C-alpha cells in the first residue's frame, strides 16, 4: 500500500483497483474453453497411444463408425502431406503418422453426438501397434546406443559422429576460459539434473472447432494466443490462414503451455469430415499430463572459477536437454540465462538437444531459465559456502549493472539486479533467527522479456468512455493494468475504460501473452493508440475554438487551450468532444501495429527458509521472500501475484513435481494425486518486495514480471536444504526419499 504513495505523479498507476473480470470469475459467469456451445455441436474424443514408441500397423474404425450417432473418425490420413520444419512437427505431434512417439500420442479422433458416445466410440477404434525400443531419460537418450527416435531429424548444427538422438548442437561464449580458470583460487565443477514438469494450469485444453468444405472455419478456444492457434491450425490442416477466425475464451491458466496447439486441429479436422458441424474437444487431466507440453528435462555440467574474495573469473555450462520426440526444448534460453547475473571475463556455453519418447515440450514460464539457475546458482552457493562468503555478498560482488556485457552477448540497458540484492539483504527475513534443522537459501534469477508482434486499437465511445481492443489474452490481470494505463493517459476514471481481448478478425497479428509481454507490449501499444486519440480530440477542440491544434494541451481528461490562447476558452471535456464527434469528423480512435521497442529485462532475488525433518527428509517452507524488479508496478497486487505464483510453481518443481516414467515408457503419474503440485497449505504466505528501476523503453516504466519469479526457487530451495542438513542435492525433485538418502549419505548412516 505504501506503493500507492511512491508515484505522486500518477493518479491511477500503482493503485490496486478491482480487476474487470473479477466478478464474472467469482460468480461462475466467466466462460472458459469448455463452456462454449454451438447449435448442432458434436463431441470429440482422441485415441491415444499406450506405447512409448510403436509403429502403427493398422487403424480400423469400422466398429466405431457403426455406432448410431458417430459422425466422423479422423486419422493422419485426413491431414495434408508434405509439411516441413515446425509445421510438420506440429502436425506430427497433434496426430501421429507412421509411428507413435510417446505414451499419449494421438493416433485417431472421433466425433459423435455426445461426449459419452465419443468416448465409447474411441474405445472401439482398433489400433494395431508394433512396439519399438524406447528411451525417456535425457542421459539415456544421448547415449550412442540409444534407440534412434527420428533418424535424420538432426539439423546442420550437429557435427558428424554425435549420438543418434542429438538433433541440435551449439556453442557460444567469450573471453579466455583457460586463463579465467587459472586466475581462480577455487574451481569447482558439478553435474545437475532437473526433471520435466508441467505448467499445471487448472483448466485443461478445450475448444470448439468448425470447418466447412469451403475452407472457412471458426474456433473458440482457451489459449494464450489466438493468432498462434490460427496459423498453427492453418498450417497443420493446409488452410488459408485468414479464412480461420479464432476467438479466445477466458483462460484458466497457461504459463506458456497454451501458446501452441494439441487438440485444436483435431476438432477442425473432425468438423470438416462431419460436414461442417462444430466439434467440441476437451482434454481430461490425464490427457493434459500425457499429451500436452511440459517443459524439458535437463542434465547440466557447470564449472565456475572464483577468487578467495568471491570474484568470479570464469564460467562454463554444458547442458543436455530433452523436450520430447521433437526439437524445441528451451536450450538456448537456458544457456543464455545461465550466467546472466554475473559479470564474467570468460564464459563458455555448449548445448545438446536430445530427442526422447516423451510429449513435445511447450513453453513453461521463463523456459529454460529455472533449470539453468538450478545448476549455476547451486554451484555459486556451494563455492561461496566453501569460501565462507555470504551468498548475497558474493552475488553483489559479481552482479551485472547497466552497460555491462551480458554472458550471452548484448550489453545491458537499465537493469535492477543490484537493487534486488540490496533489498533482499535489508529485508527482515534475511535476519530472521533459524532453529535446529532449519536453513536459509538465496538465489537470483533472470528473464529477458519479450516484445513481439503487437496490434492494439482503442476508440472513444459517444459518452467519453473508452474501449481498448487487445490481442493478448489476460492470464495475469493484464486487462486491469492496461485499463489503468489508458485511463491514466486519458485522464479519466479507470472504470470508464473497458479492455477487450478480441478475436483474430478484429486486429492485425499478435503474438500470444508470452515472454512477459502483455503489460509491456500491449500496454505500450495501448498508450500510443490512446495518444493518437488524444491528438485527434485536441484537433477537434482546436477546430471548435478556431485555433491551431498545436496550441491545445490535454489535461485531466479535457482539451485545454495553451500558449497564447491559454484561458481564452474553458476546457473541453472528453465527454463533450465525444458527444459531438459524429458532427466534428466522425469516430475518434487510435491504433498501433508493430514490434514495440525497449523491452526491459527483469532480475529477481529470492530468500527461502526451510526446515527439514532429518528422519523423513520432508522439507517445510518456513518463509519465502521474492524481490524482483518490476520497472514500475502498474497494479501492485497483480505484480505481487506474479511473484508469488512463480515462487509457488518453482517450489513445486524443486520439491515434488516430476514426470515419472516406468520401465515400459508409460507415464505413471498422469493426475494431480501423484503429480504433486503444492497445495495451498504447503506454502507460507510468500513475502514480496517490488523493486522499481523504471524501464526507459516503456511510457510508464514497465518491465515484464511474469516469468522471472519461477527462476530462483529451484536453487534457492536446494541451497536452503543444504544449509539445513549439510546435504547438497544436485538433482530434482528434492522429495523426501531423495533428501533422506542425501542426509544419510553425509551423516554416514
Amino acid at each position, binding site marked *: 500500500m505504501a506503493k500507492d504513495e511512491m508515484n505522486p505523479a500518477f493518479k491511477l498507476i500503482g493503485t490496486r483497483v478491482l480487476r474487470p473480470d473479477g466478478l464474472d470469475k467469482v460468480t461462475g459467469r466467466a466462460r472458459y474453453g469448455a463452456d462454449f456451445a454451438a447449435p448442432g455441436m458434436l463431441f470429440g474424443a482422441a485415441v491415444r497411444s499406450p506405447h512409448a514408441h510403436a509403429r502403427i500397423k493398422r487403424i480400423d474404425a469400422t466398429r466405431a463408425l457403426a455406432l448410431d450417432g458417430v459422425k466422423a473418425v479422423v486419422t493422419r490420413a485426413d491431414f495434408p502431406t508434405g509439411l516441413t520444419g515446425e509445421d510438420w512437427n506440429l502436425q506430427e505431434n497433434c496426430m501421429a503418422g507412421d509411428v507413435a512417439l510417446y505414451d499419449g500420442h494421438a493416433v485417431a479422433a472421433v466425433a459423435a453426438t455426445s461426449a459419452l458416445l465419443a468416448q465409447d466410440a474411441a474405445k472401439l477404434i482398433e489400433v494395431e501397434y508394433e512396439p519399438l525400443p524406447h528411451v525417456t531419460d535425457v542421459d539415456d537418450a544421448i547415449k550412442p546406443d540409444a534407440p534412434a527416435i527420428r533418424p535424420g531429424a538432426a539439423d546442420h548444427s550437429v557435427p558428424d559422429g554425435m549420438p543418434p538422438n542429438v538433433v541440435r548442437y551449439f556453442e557460444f561464449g567469450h573471453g579466455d576460459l583457460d586463463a579465467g580458470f587459472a586466475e581462480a583460487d577455487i574451481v569447482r565443477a558439478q553435474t545437475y539434473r532437473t526433471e520435466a514438469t508441467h505448467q499445471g494450469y487448472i483448466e485443461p485444453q478445450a475448444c470448439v472447432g468448425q470447418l466447412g468444405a469451403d475452407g472457412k472455419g471458426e474456433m473458440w478456444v482457451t489459449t494464450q494466443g489466438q493468432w498462434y492457434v490460427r496459423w498453427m491450425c492453418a498450417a497443420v490442416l493446409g488452410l488459408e490462414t485468414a479464412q480461420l477466425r479464432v476467438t479466445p475464451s477466458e483462460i484458466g491458466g497457461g504459463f506458456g503451455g497454451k501458446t501452441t496447439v494439441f487438440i485444436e486441429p483435431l476438432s477442425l479436422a473432425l468438423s470438416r469430415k462431419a460436414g461442417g458441424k462444430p466439434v467440441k474437444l476437451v482434454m481430461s487431466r490425464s490427457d493434459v499430463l500425457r499429451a500436452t507440453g511440459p517443459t524439458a528435462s535437463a542434465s547440466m555440467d557447470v564449472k565456475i572459477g572464483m577468487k578467495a574474495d568471491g570474484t568470479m573469473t570464469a564460467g562454463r555450462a554444458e547442458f543436455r536437454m530433452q523436450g520430447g520426440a521433437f526439437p524445441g526444448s528451451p536450450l538456448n534460453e537456458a544457456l543464455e540465462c545461465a550466467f546472466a547475473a554475473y559479470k564474467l571475463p570468460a564464459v563458455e556455453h555448449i548445448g545438446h538437444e536430445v530427442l526422447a519418447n516423451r510429449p513435445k515440450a511447450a513453453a513453461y514460464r521463463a523456459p529454460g531459465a529455472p533449470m539453468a539457475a538450478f545448476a549455476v546458482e547451486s554451484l555459486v552457493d556451494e563455492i561461496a559456502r566453501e569460501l565462507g562468503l555470504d551468498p548475497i555478498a558474493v552475488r553483489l560482488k559479481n552482479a551485472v549493472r547497466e552497460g555491462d556485457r551480458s554472458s550471452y552477448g548484448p550489453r545491458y540497458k537499465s537493469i535492477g539486479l543490484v537493487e534486488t540484492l540490496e533489498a533482499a539483504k535489508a529485508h527482515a527475513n534475511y535476519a530472521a533467527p533459524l532453529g535446529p534443522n532449519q536453513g536459509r537459501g538465496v538465489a537470483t534469477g533472470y528473464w529477458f522479456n519479450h516484445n513481439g508482434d503487437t496490434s492494439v486499437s482503442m476508440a472513444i465511445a459517444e459518452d467519453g468512455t473508452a474501449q481498448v481492443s487487445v490481442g493478448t489474452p489476460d492470464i495475469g490481470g493484464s486487462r486491469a493494468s492496461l485499463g489503468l494505463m489508458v485511463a491514466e493517459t486519458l485522464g479519466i476514471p479507470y472504470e470508464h475504460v473497458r479492455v477487450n481481448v478480441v478475436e483474430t478478425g478484429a486486429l492485425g497479428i499478435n503474438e500470444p501473452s508470452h515472454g512477459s509481454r502483455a503489460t509491456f507490449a500491449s500496454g505500450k501499444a495501448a498508450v500510443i493508440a490512446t495518444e493518437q486519440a488524444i491528438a485527434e480530440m485536441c484537433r477537434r477542440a482546436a477546430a471548435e475554438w478556431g485555433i491551431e491544434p498545436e496550441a491545445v494541451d490535454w489535461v485531466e481528461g479535457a482539451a485545454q487551450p495553451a500558449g497564447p490562447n491559454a484561458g481564452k476558452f474553458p476546457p473541453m471535456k472528453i465527454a463533450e468532444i465525444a458527444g459531438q464527434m459524429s458532427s466534428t469528423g466522425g469516430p475518434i480512435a487510435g491504433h498501433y501495429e508493430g514490434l514495440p521497442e525497449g523491452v526491459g529485462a527483469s532480475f529477481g532475488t529470492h530468500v527461502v527458509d526451510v526446515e527439514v525433518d532429518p528422519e523423513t527428509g520432508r522439507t517445510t517452507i518456513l518463509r519465502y521472500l521474492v524481490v524482483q524488479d518490476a520497472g514500475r508496478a502498474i497494479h501492485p497486487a497483480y505484480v505481487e501475484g506474479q511473484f508469488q505464483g512463480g515462487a509457488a510453481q518453482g517450489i513445486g518443481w524443486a520439491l515434488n513435481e516430476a514426470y515419472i516414467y516406468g520401465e515400459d515408457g508409460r507415464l*505413471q503419474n498422469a493426475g494431480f494425486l*501423484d503429480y*504433486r503440485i503444492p*497445495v495451498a497449505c504447503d506454502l507460507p504466505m510468500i513475502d514480496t518486495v517490488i523493486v522499481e528501476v523504471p524501464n526507459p523503453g516503456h511510457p510508464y516504466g514497465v518491465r515484464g514480471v511474469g516469468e522471472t519469479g519461477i527462476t530462483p526457487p529451484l536453487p534457492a530451495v536446494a541451497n536452503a536444504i543444504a544449509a539445513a542438513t549439510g546435504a547438497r542435492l544436485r538433482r530434482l525433485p528434492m522429495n523426501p526419499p531423495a533428501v533422506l*538418502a542425501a542426509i544419510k549419505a553425509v551423516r554416514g548412516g
Partner: protein
Amino acid sequence: MHYHTPASFEEAVRIAASAGGVTRFLAGGTDVLVQLRAGAVTPDDLIDLKHIPGVHDIAATPQGGWRIGVAVSGAELGEHAALKRDWPGVVEAMELVGSTQVQGRATLTGNLCNGSPAADSVPALVAAGARVAVTGPQGSREMAVEQVPTGPGKTALGPGDLITAITLPPRGAGGGDAYQRFIPRTEMDIAVVGCAVNLTLEGDVITQARVALGAVAPTVMLVPEAAEAIISTTLDSDALEALVKVARSAARPISDKRGTAEFRTDIAGVLARRVAELAYARAKGRAK
C-alpha cells in the same frame, strides 16, 4: 446401469444377490464415483445404502463402545465430541482422507471396503480393535476389521455381502490411540506409510497395545510384535528403539511412484515411534 435405493440391508442384499454383472455399493461415493468417472469401473447395479434407517447414526453401545453407521461421513465423526474423546486416533485418521469437500461424503466403511493398503482410517480401526457387522446371502456375522482387506482392492466380503456397521470397543480407563501418515505434501495425498497405535496404561506402564501399519504390505497389517515391544514398558527409549526395529522388520513394502521400499521401511519405524509417543501422551491425558 441400474441405481437402487433399498430401504433395508436385507433388501440391499437381495438386490446384490440377484444382480448378474458388476455391483457396487454406494455410501459416500468418494471412491466409487471417481472410479466410475475415470472409466475404471462401470457398474451394472449401483446400490445406494444412504436411505437405510440408521446408517447416518453414531450410537453408544450398551457395552460402552460406539456403533458407527455405514454412511456417517468423516466430517460427522470429527464433530462428535464424545467419540473424539474416546477414539481420537480413529477420528483423526478418517479426517485425513481427502479434502474438506470429500470429508462431507467419505465414510469409514467405504475407506475399508475400497481395500487400499494405504487407507488412512483402517490402521486406526485395526489398532482400536474395531469390528464390522456383515450381512449377506448366508446371514449375518461379525469380523475383526483386520480380517476384511485381503489384498489391494480386495476384501473377504463375498458377493452380496455388505457391512452394516462398524463397532468400536469401550475405551476404558487409561487408554489412548493415535494415527499419523507420511505424505510428501501436507494434504490431498495418499499415505506413503501410515501407522496407528492404541494402548492402555496402568500408571505409567503399558498393559495393552495394538500397533497397525498401512502402505507397507498388500493389506493394512496388525503387528503384534510391535505391540509386544512396548507392552510392560513405560515407553522408555529402549522400548521405543525396539518398537522402531520391529516395525521396520515387519514392513514388507514395494517400491512405486509414491516411495521406495527402503524409504517406506525407514519411515515405518519413525512413524511407529512418533505415534506411540502421541498415543502414550493421550493415555496420560497430556495430549488431545
